[in-house]
């Protein structure tokens, strides 16, 4: 366990021959830093902003900048949860109905009974954790491959979302919600950005500075080795899905506050699954597990939001939005040299090595 918890490690445990070269290479520090996906993304965000505002001067208006940031927070929070699962070498395709169920789960009481927002926060977290625990059970306890398990819960949760709405939709939320979703804390600094930054900071600390967090990287890197080093692999895998569900639930509350409505297709109609995975991938987290982090994913979410705004500013018809995101995914995957080992799909469910022949 001590090996896992070494907090002095400056970055994630790296795959052999990957970005770890920064330590060995004697080249300039600045060049090494440029290899970091987070920095590349900041530069990309600035470049895209500069390009767009050169073509469309209104793009850089302060309202638009904070809109881009605030608009990305719902995706950002879900993407951070997705990142945690992916770091453990899983995938969660059920985040969109979890987000939707959380949004309607508090949306109706808020609309009809003026539910207090603190209670709402508690409810979405419980909903998210419960649904996430369902995924965790299937993956970590039963041992079903994550992609199939969460594909199945995607339909099951999606069905539940339809049943819960009963054909109704949330259209009118109390002011407290709307203020949180759209008002500024300080001039030019929306509340949502503060919330998003806080979530990223907490998760970053958890992943980098606690034994459990480090263990997620270790499990994602090599579950067998982590098991032999004493990490409770199944419990950690279970936990990643619970946290992913929790953050997807929180994303639902943020979505509700920001957009002000929710219905049976909330989450699915905005492709939350795709967006969260895209943000994580663009942010440098690989589906191989064990590499990446919440900061990159948050930047990825901002970049996506900015890219979509740029498409709108350039009068690209909205039907091309999914294609834009799809193209970004393909580009992010192809340009990420860390993601090249051939069989990324080979994410067999973990089994304690002692049970079988090796």
């Amino acid at each position, binding site marked *: 366990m001590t090996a896992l918890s070494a907090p002095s490690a400056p970055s994630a445990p790296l795959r052999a021959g990957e970005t770890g070269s920064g330590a060995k290479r004697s080249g300039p520090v600045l060049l090494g830093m440029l290899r970091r996906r987070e920095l590349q993304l900041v530069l990309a965000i600035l470049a895209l902003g500069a390009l767009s505002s050169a073509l469309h001067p209104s793009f850089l208006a302060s309202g638009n900048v904070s809109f881009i940031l605030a608009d990305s927070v719902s995706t950002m929070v879900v993407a951070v949860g997705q990142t945690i699962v992916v770091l453990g070498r899983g995938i969660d395709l059920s985040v969109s109905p979890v987000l939707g169920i959380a949004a309607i789960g508090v949306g109706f009481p808020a609309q009809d009974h003026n539910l207090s927002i603190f209670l709402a926060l508690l409810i979405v977290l419980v909903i998210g954790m419960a649904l996430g625990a369902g995924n965790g059970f299937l993956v970590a306890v*039963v041992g079903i491959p994550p992609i*199939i398990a969460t594909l199945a819960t995607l339909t*099951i949760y999606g069905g539940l979302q339809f049943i819960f709405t009963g054909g109704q939709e949330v259209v009118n939320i109390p002011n407290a919600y709307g203020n949180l979703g759209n008002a500024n804390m300080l001039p030019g600094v929306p509340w949502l950005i503060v919330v998003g930054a806080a979530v990223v900071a907490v998760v970053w600390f958890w992943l980098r500075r606690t034994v459990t967090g480090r263990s997620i990287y270790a499990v994602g890197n090599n579950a067998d080795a982590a098991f032999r080093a004493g990490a409770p692999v199944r419990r950690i895998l279970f936990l990643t899905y619970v946290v992913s569900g929790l953050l997807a639930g929180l994303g639902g509350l943020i979505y509700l506050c920001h957009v002000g409505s929710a219905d049976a297709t909330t989450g699915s109609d905005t492709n939350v699954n795709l967006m969260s995975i895209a943000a994580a991938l663009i942010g440098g987290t690989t589906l191989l597990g064990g590499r990446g982090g919440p900061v990159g994913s948050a930047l990825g979410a901002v970049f996506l939001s900015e890219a979509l705004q740029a498409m709108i500013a350039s009068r690209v018809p909205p039907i091309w939005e999914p294609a834009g995101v799809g193209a970004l995914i393909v580009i992010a995957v192809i340009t990420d040299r860390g993601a090249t080992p051939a069989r990324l*799909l080979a994410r067999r469910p973990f089994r304690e090595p002692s*049970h079988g022949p090796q």
Partner: protein
Amino acid sequence: MSTTPVSSAKPGASQARSKTAGRQETIWTVALAALLVVLLAYFYLAVPDFRSLGTSGVLALCEQFLFTGLIALGEAVVVLAGEIDLSTGAMSSLSGILMASLWQQGLNIWLATVLALFAAALGGALNGFLVTRFNVSSLLVTLGTQFIFGSVATAVGGNTPPYNFPRSFVTLVGTGTVGPVPDQLLVFAVVAVAAWLLVARTRYGRSLVLIGYNRAASRYSGIDVRRSLLWAFVASGLLAGMAGIFVSGYYNAARDDIGDSLLLPAITVVVLGGVDIFGGRGRMSGVILATFLLGFLTQGLLIRGDSSLTATMVTGVVLVLCLVLKVALDHRAWAQLRELLRHRVSGMGELRAGRGA
């Protein structure tokens, strides 16, 4: 698993695999067939509306799910090789829209169909090219191209995608019948047999399965892994395109919105059919049976009066249940128990290393 011409490189390992894995696949396939019979019997006895359909009515139900089966056949080819294709649903939409738009431009509808199928194969080739050339995960590449194909379909189709195709077209790939048997079923039968033969009886098919089972071993035994995978994606794209033509024929209108709703059932069919999602294990016969099993289950529930929503949820539940069952069957404890029994019974002291992956 009876013929494994490509296994010559590692005869011992491959034969151990083909015996245990083959037996399990046989059990799974037989169980599927039995379940299908039980299911049909249940609906026939317990649901009056289902009984009153008669033979031709029940056969006509197939038109509601055969396009899913076509996608599943293509998907199975890719999954057997250890990859996955998430873009098949969107590809169905795209090929239907392309066919209809070309026809609307004044092209002969059959020519338009051939061109649309060609485009679908090209789309599959694009997937395969990205996966093999850049050596990246098919999960990610097809997740991306899924949305690209979908956007193109929506853009080409416009607000009102073409509809009202010529009668001959709607009859053959849509709602026509030969006696009580829908034309679609006949076309599907031909394609299904071809896909089965391809996987089970050709050198290429067996090499695909070996690629899925052990990529390094297949490379050492002289298989061109990249080219084989590329063609698997082409097959997947082509069959998805064919499904799009079926959909257009059945609804007598091109649909750009149906792709998303086809992907999950298709993957469910593949997994239910006993194909290991990690490749290297499974049979096309299982996939074909699973097409009918899941299709009749869904349609039977709908006829019984359940909402389409319930039917979709049942799809998800079935997927989970069959995986739980599979994991239970897969469990090493069972394998060891069976080994022990066989050891006792036959007296053959050959030690087998289970079916460790």
